[in-house]
């Protein structure tokens, strides 16, 4: 069993029971929500299950002490597909990263054909962020409730997600979902061998409207590499729900 149960987990469990009791939530011990449902709700806050979302990202990467040039991207996403259009830096304007069903392609103005991005190239760099910013964990993973644990003082359900099939990049994810807001606030991404590869933290300051409801939406994502000292911060802005035509994700029309 690779899930390391931290010391004091028992203590935390008791503590969280107390906290939940304080906030008057539904009795946690007997009525913890179904893991898959929880996962689906949390996906929504990052764009899952919606007919289409368009948003802008400001992305800053740090590799060791070197801070890379900030980028501004326009993302359009629906469920398993997304396309990221580079707006800044200006010299890379027009570069696009397309992700459809676990396949990824890169194209640039001037290239005659889009370049497929292999799984190895997704181990690091910007392409690796794509797997993490993916919106549809419910489609790729089976969820099992594991624990409860607070994150930054906020009580969370901890889910163990296991990949449904062998083509999903991260074999297992440990996912902290806020009990109150039902949004994912922290995630740990593990390899097949059980090694921690990346950690991500999510903030939900945005709000989108859909079918009359106001849904919280991710405003900031911080991805930290567990193996090397590198970190990427993405700030999400001008989020809109919009139906996106399938043609947007057509490889042939990508140029």
């Amino acid at each position, binding site marked *: 069993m690779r899930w390391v149960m931290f010391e004091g987990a028992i203590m935390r469990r008791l503590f969280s029971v107390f906290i939940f009791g304080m906030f008057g939530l539904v009795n946690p011990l007997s009525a913890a929500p179904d893991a898959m449902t929880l996962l689906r709700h949390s996906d929504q806050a990052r764009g899952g299950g919606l007919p289409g979302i368009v948003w802008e990202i400001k992305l800053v990467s740090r590799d060791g002490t070197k801070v890379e040039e900030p980028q501004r991207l326009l993302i359009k996403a629906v469920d398993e597909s997304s396309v990221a259009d580079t707006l800044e830096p200006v010299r890379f304007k027009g570069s696009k990263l397309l992700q459809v069903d676990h396949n990824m392609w890169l194209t640039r103005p001037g290239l005659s054909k889009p370049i497929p991005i292999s799984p190895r190239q997704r181990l690091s760099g910007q392409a690796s962020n794509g797997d993490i910013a993916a919106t549809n964990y419910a489609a790729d993973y089976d969820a099992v409730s594991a624990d409860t644990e607070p994150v930054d003082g906020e009580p969370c359900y901890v889910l163990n997600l296991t990949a449904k099939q062998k083509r999903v990049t991260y074999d297992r994810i440990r996912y902290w979902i806020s009990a109150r807001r039902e949004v994912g606030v922290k995630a740990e991404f593990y390899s*097949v*061998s059980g090694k921690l590869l990346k950690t991500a933290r999510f903030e939900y300051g945005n709000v989108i409207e859909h079918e009359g409801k106001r849904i919280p939406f991710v405003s900031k994502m911080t991805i930290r590499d567990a193996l090397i000292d590198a970190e990427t911060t993405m700030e999400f802005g001008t989020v809109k729900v919009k139906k996106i035509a399938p043609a947007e994700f057509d490889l042939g029309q990508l140029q």
Partner: protein
Amino acid sequence: MKNISMKNTFTLALRGLSRNRRRSMVTLLAIAFGYSAIVLFAGYTHNVYGGLARQSIYGEMLGHLTLSKRGMRKEGKLDPERYMLTSTEVASITKLLKDEKHIELLAPRLGLSGLISNGRASTIFIADGIEPKAVVDLRQGGLTDQERKSGMYENMKMRLDPEHSEVVSLSEGLVEMLHLSVGGQAVVLANTLTGQANALDITLGRSFNTGNAGSNDKFAFVSLALARSLLDAEGRADRLTILLDDVNRTETMRAHLQEKLRAAGFDVEIQNWQDLSDFYNQVHGMFDMIFGFIFSIVLTVVIMSVANSMGMTVVERTREIGTLRAIGLKRGGVIKLFTTESMLLTLIGCITGLLIALVVRWGINIAHISYTPPNSASAVPLLIDLDARRAMFTFVLMGVVGTLAAYMPARRAAKKDIIDALGHV
């Protein structure tokens, strides 16, 4: 028709050589030194080839034969999963070949690439996964008896640890880039066969030099277990390395195994070490070219020496030739006489050259000279073998050429009118 016998021609030709001792000697020495140069160089290259063969088979761990699924060489690079041997195939083939008495070792190999990280920075690496025991078996075959006794066997730089599959050997450039020391920890990151991200802890066991600047900062040897775990490829291999008991059996075994496996339904191809060792082929090709070059030069010098020598001799002996013709030697006999003289000169020259070569060879071999060849991490001894095949071939060719070189001057002599010849001062 009566003709001068071969024996008589020989005796006369031999005497003819002593006509102008100095000239004969000079030509003979030119032939001798030329021949010895060829024999020595051929012996040197023969030794180099032998060393390279051992280096390729044992040092580079190519073994004698490499067995892989057909298509692996070409398409396999882009789609390894499809062209890898499955665990069933590996097991079945191993079992099928277990009783082959000329096979000393059958080692599954698994290549992979990915990122290696020391916690602060990462860089790409290319690794070969192999069983630690197979490393020892393969590399020790390349050691001479002397080396084996000295304990080099124990210090072989590329040894992996059979007890600890996480111990790896990294190329020196990699070690330097990641600032690792022996026993230091790092992480390797790669994709499984299905594309999932995977990572494992590794410990640096030893570092080594690939001998090639381009690969010395990328290459690594890992245990087969580690490679299989990282790729999530239990029991699988992308090729099997086969070590035989005798390098001369390589081709016959290849054909035999190919047939046996095809008959058993395995769609495999088997390549020998020469197909796979670029370095061997390049060096072999280069040395062959140099040999050809030297050979041509020596041959040209021999032809010119002999033709010159015979030309002068024939002119000097014009009156003698006239006399011989008068007393009954036919034109053909004159040509035979001089070409025989030249042939004898060449043969004696070659024999002398052979003796010179043997002496020089003996001297060099006991001098224990060593040098560091290109693309090598360490010095190798300078030794000269005796390449009998090439020596023989050169001997025959020089004999032929030396004989023919006298033909034109001899013919000129034979064609001269007797009265002109006799009147020659």
